[in-house]
């Protein structure tokens, strides 16, 4: 691999939080994932952000539609399996009404995955997004994250469309069940 990140450790979850704060994202909806742990903690410490833990990712589609109707911006954090839980609401509300939405998706089911039950949804995530014509950008390396999240958030809110940032399992590290 020629593009290996050789820079010193970059705190990319903090960089994502800073982009959220700078762009006045208020409603931060999430179903937790280990890969989102630090980002969720940064957002929780920000008094301006309303943290909405969801029972299923699908709820985030209605929530962020309502938020936008009321003038709030936001985002939904999920893992790749969560995308599967969203599809009808995503298509039939968010896309059908041209609501702006950024989804930040941590990837499972790739790059040294331990759990085979994660692979079918993880390996289909990009195809599912593509089938819905959702602009999707993958980050494999730390130094891609800031620019990508900034651009995908800008695209969603400037152009009233749905965008997805995929944070690869290579970036977040494969989950270990042995710790």
């Amino acid at each position, binding site marked *: 691999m020629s593009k290996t990140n050789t820079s010193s450790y970059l705190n990319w979850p903090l960089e994502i939080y800073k982009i959220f704060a700078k762009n006045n994202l208020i409603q931060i909806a999430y179903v937790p994932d280990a890969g989102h742990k630090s980002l969720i903690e940064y957002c929780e410490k920000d008094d301006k952000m309303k943290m909405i833990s969801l029972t299923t990712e699908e709820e985030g589609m209605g929530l962020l539609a309502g938020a936008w109707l009321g003038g709030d911006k936001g985002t939904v954090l999920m893992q790749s399996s969560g995308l599967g839980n969203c599809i009808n609401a995503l298509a039939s509300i968010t896309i059908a*009404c041209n609501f702006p939405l950024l989804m930040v998706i941590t990837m499972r089911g790739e790059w040294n995955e331990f759990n085979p039950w994660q692979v079918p949804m993880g390996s289909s995530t990009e195809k599912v997004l593509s089938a819905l014509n959702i602009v999707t950008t993958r980050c494999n390396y730390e130094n891609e994250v800031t620019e990508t999240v900034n651009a995908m958030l800008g695209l969603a809110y400037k152009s009233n469309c749905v965008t997805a940032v995929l944070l690869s399992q290579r970036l977040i590290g494969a989950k270990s069940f042995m710790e």
Partner: protein
Amino acid sequence: MIKRRSAVYELLKNRKDTIVINGLGGTCWDVASLGDNDLNFNVWGGMGNACMIGLGLALAQPHQKIIVITGDGEMLMGLGSLATIGVHSPKNLSIVVFDNELYGETGAQKTHTSKGVSLKDIAIGAGIKNSHLIYKLSELKAFSDNINKITNLTFLQIKISKDNGEMTLPIRDGSYLKNRFRNALLGEQSLYE
């Protein structure tokens, strides 16, 4: 038993600038039967999400009264959202379920509420203490008379008769509804964002 059109009229007769999210199916036609309103958001898809649209709005606009009016089938598809809403308990949100114990748009198949499932009890279990099961118009009146006052998160399960009112179809285009709503609530400048 309460007729659905009597229930919607009673609920919204003193509406003023209250926001109404119309859940898909019969309740969408019910709200439309009272006439169009820029602060209606007619939900035509994404079954199970009407209450979450209400929550997003309630958090964004804490001083605006918001009513979600939806059906038992639609509510049953989004039961988890009651837990999410219960956790946040926005004072300005009311959820009203018109419960005819059937899926009215697909051939009148029975829903779980016809077999003893209590949406009111589920709402209470989700932390929505102010939850009520209503059988009579006189019981509903106690709530509708205060519908414009911001009080507490409220959940009403209203048992309605199985007959439908005259079909009244509201505007369908989602992008138009969204922009019309934002223009009415947030002002014209919001369309330039």
